[in-house]
């Protein structure tokens, strides 16, 4: 990663962390404050992203929405990655038969498309943020797990670990000093790539009315609400959509800079 890329990525992450944890620093207004007389104002200096159907400031809502949207994306990715670490590591280190069993389970998880799996889970649990996280997490897990597995298998047979063996390192030292840190590095890149997609999937669920309930300013929900006014007020759906695109594109860029390859995540 070049120096400029490092600085830019750090700024990007810092910006979103800031918006997620202290949105009021950037947009001090209340994202839920209504003002019906100011509804459907086009972007202007007073409301740079315009106002929505209840006169709420879209900029304020987009900024305040970062917390929810990113939370779902991060939580889902964390869940997916956690599951993947367990399954992937187990598969990589387990005897052949167990590896085979885990692979089949992963394939089964993989065979139902993400959003379909999410809907399936919601059919059992009913809609909401929790099910959305579980659904997105579960549907991304197999992709991660396969990569964890191959990553660990590659590392397990790497010259690096052989060199450590030759130097007389015990299993624990090899795992702690080399296997884990080196497995995590590409996974970090992968997770970064994955977060963007998780945010999109979570937004898709909200868009279908199965995620975050209103009036919380979650991007997918805002987009969903705004799309009905597409003919009247494009800014209602444009800016939340832009936020999703920026986060997803940014996470792709950083993920790639971290050495991640675009893979099935």
């Amino acid at each position: 990663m070049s120096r400029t890329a490092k600085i830019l990525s750090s700024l990007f992450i810092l910006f979103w962390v800031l918006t997620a944890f202290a949105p009021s620093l950037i947009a001090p207004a209340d994202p839920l404050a209504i003002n019906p007389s100011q509804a459907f104002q086009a972007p202007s200096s007073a409301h740079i992203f315009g106002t929505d159907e209840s006169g709420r400031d879209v900029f304020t809502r987009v900024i305040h929405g970062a917390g929810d949207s990113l939370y779902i994306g991060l939580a889902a990715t964390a869940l997916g990655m956690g599951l993947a670490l367990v399954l992937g590591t187990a598969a990589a280190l387990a005897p052949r038969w167990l590896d085979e069993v885990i692979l089949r389970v992963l394939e089964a998880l993989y065979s139902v498309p993400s959003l379909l799996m999410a809907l399936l889970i919601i059919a059992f649990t009913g809609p909401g943020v929790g099910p959305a996280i579980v659904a997105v997490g579960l549907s991304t897990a197999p992709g991660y797990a396969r990569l964890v597995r191959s990553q660990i298998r590659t590392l397990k047979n790497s010259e690096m670990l052989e060199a450590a063996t030759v130097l007389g390192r015990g299993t624990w030292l090899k795992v702690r000093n080399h296997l884990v840190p080196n497995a995590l590095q590409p996974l970090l890149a992968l997770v970064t790539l994955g977060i963007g997609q998780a945010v999109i999937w979570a937004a898709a669920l909200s868009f279908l009315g199965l995620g975050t309930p209103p009036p919380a300013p979650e991007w997918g929900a805002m987009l969903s609400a705004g799309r009905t006014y597409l003919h009247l007020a494009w800014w209602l759906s444009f800016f939340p959509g832009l936020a999703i695109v920026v986060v997803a594109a940014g996470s792709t860029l950083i993920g790639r800079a971290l050495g991640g390859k675009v893979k099935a995540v």
Partner: protein
Amino acid sequence: MRRNQRATRLLTGALALPLAAALIAGCSSTEDPSANKDTKPVAGGTLVYASGDAEPSCLDPHVGGNYPQALVASQFMESLFTKDAEGKIIPWLAEKSEVSADGLTRTITLRDGITFHDGTKLTSEAIKANIEHLQDPNTASSTGYLAVGKVDQIKLVDDLTAELKLSAPDNALLESLSMPWTAIQSPQGLKRDQAANCAAPAGTGPFKVESWDRQQAVNLVRYEDYVSPAANAERASATSYLDGITWRFIPEAASRYAALQSGEVDVIDNPQPDTISTAADNGLGHLDAPRPGASNRLELNSSKAPFDDVRVREAFMHSVDVNSGINSLYFNTAKRSYSLLSSVEPLGISDDSKFTTDATKANELLDAAGWSERDSEGYRVKDGKRLTLKFPVSTNQSVPAEQSLFEQMQAAAKPVGFEVKIELLDLSSWYGALAKHEYDLVSAPYTKVGPSVLRILFHSDSTIPAPSGYFANNAQIKDPKLDQLLVDAEQTNDEAERAELYKQAQQIVLDGYYVMPLYDQQNHFLYSKNVHGMGETTAVSSPIYYNVFLDK
């Protein structure tokens, strides 16, 4: 039959049109683009209709019985009675009807010469078969079932005459029988299994169901043997002008409107308010047909805290500002209602004094009711419990503008100290939440012809769930005096007394702050300029396309 005619301009400007009758007050249509063109009706062409409602799982409106079913069924099924332009109930498939002095026997005589789409003749047997079908628990009828609840047994007098024995006098029976949910279909058809009948019910309407490509369209075609119960000399042929109707389901409002704009579809329902307001500018026709029965309203669950205290209910009424919300969200397409009943119901009374926005008063009432403390988030607390209102909202029943309105209420109630928790639910979960009494506020539209809807909505019997778990009295009003008024109102023969009884009943509900009326149940349609003759509707305001024609 004189069905509701709603286009004044149409009527004055285009007398050549084979349309008749005056307007019902309160209904309006923006300028019909065809009105001044003196267009002569031409036969032919298939109209494409795009509905924003969920695709019904059954085309037979007896099964379940919701408004989307009524919208489509109005094209291929007809009722025994209907409502004329003045709002009076008149016979339709029936020729005449009489009631005995004790009010317990209703005799209905059918018109002769009408045939169902399956070729069978309309006879009194059909009345019996249809009402029994509605009452059969396996039909799982909700709306029609309640409408014919007082019919005990049916006696066939002759080929065209049936006698309905009632358990109690019911002056709303004809209104009930004017609704599409009690429309008449072929007894032969009803004998099929439910899936078959759901796919293509055989009615008597001007169109018949040719096919139903699920998720694409219900294809309706002209019924060539149609006999209009209201003969019209000006029409050369009794059959519809249109060759057929392609009834599509396009749930996305923006897509639906785009399709209308690009000419892919001719008529859409459930348009967004902003698109209604600009319809005329965009060369589109607009039909506004408020549904009868109840107005769209919020019901406050009075059976449990905090709304078991009338002061809290009153405080809520004063804490929100509905009017400015309606103004900003509905673009002057919806008028604020202060009545329990639709504006098309002549017996409804209005009382705007109860719904003023007055935060001071609301605060005083809440203080008085013991909700005087506030927690860190500014919500009121009593005995350690927050003043929380659970508000399940059905995404199928509340359009986006209405959801936004609720969000605005939520925001407005917060400074006063109410925590309104809106839960957007699919229909199934929404019913589930209601069945479990997990609500303090709810908006449940109910369409029925006539003021007897008040009994369904506010009689204490309606707090008892049906076997399906459904109950209509969501405000949970249990007032013996109100019950008595509602029962008496349905049994009297005297119109004036009926009006008075309903007035008193409505006053009790309004005084108890059980219900917050919002506006009429919105029922708007936009249509492109090549569509002519829009305006005719059934008793429940669902449009009929019998007289509609397209430019060649």
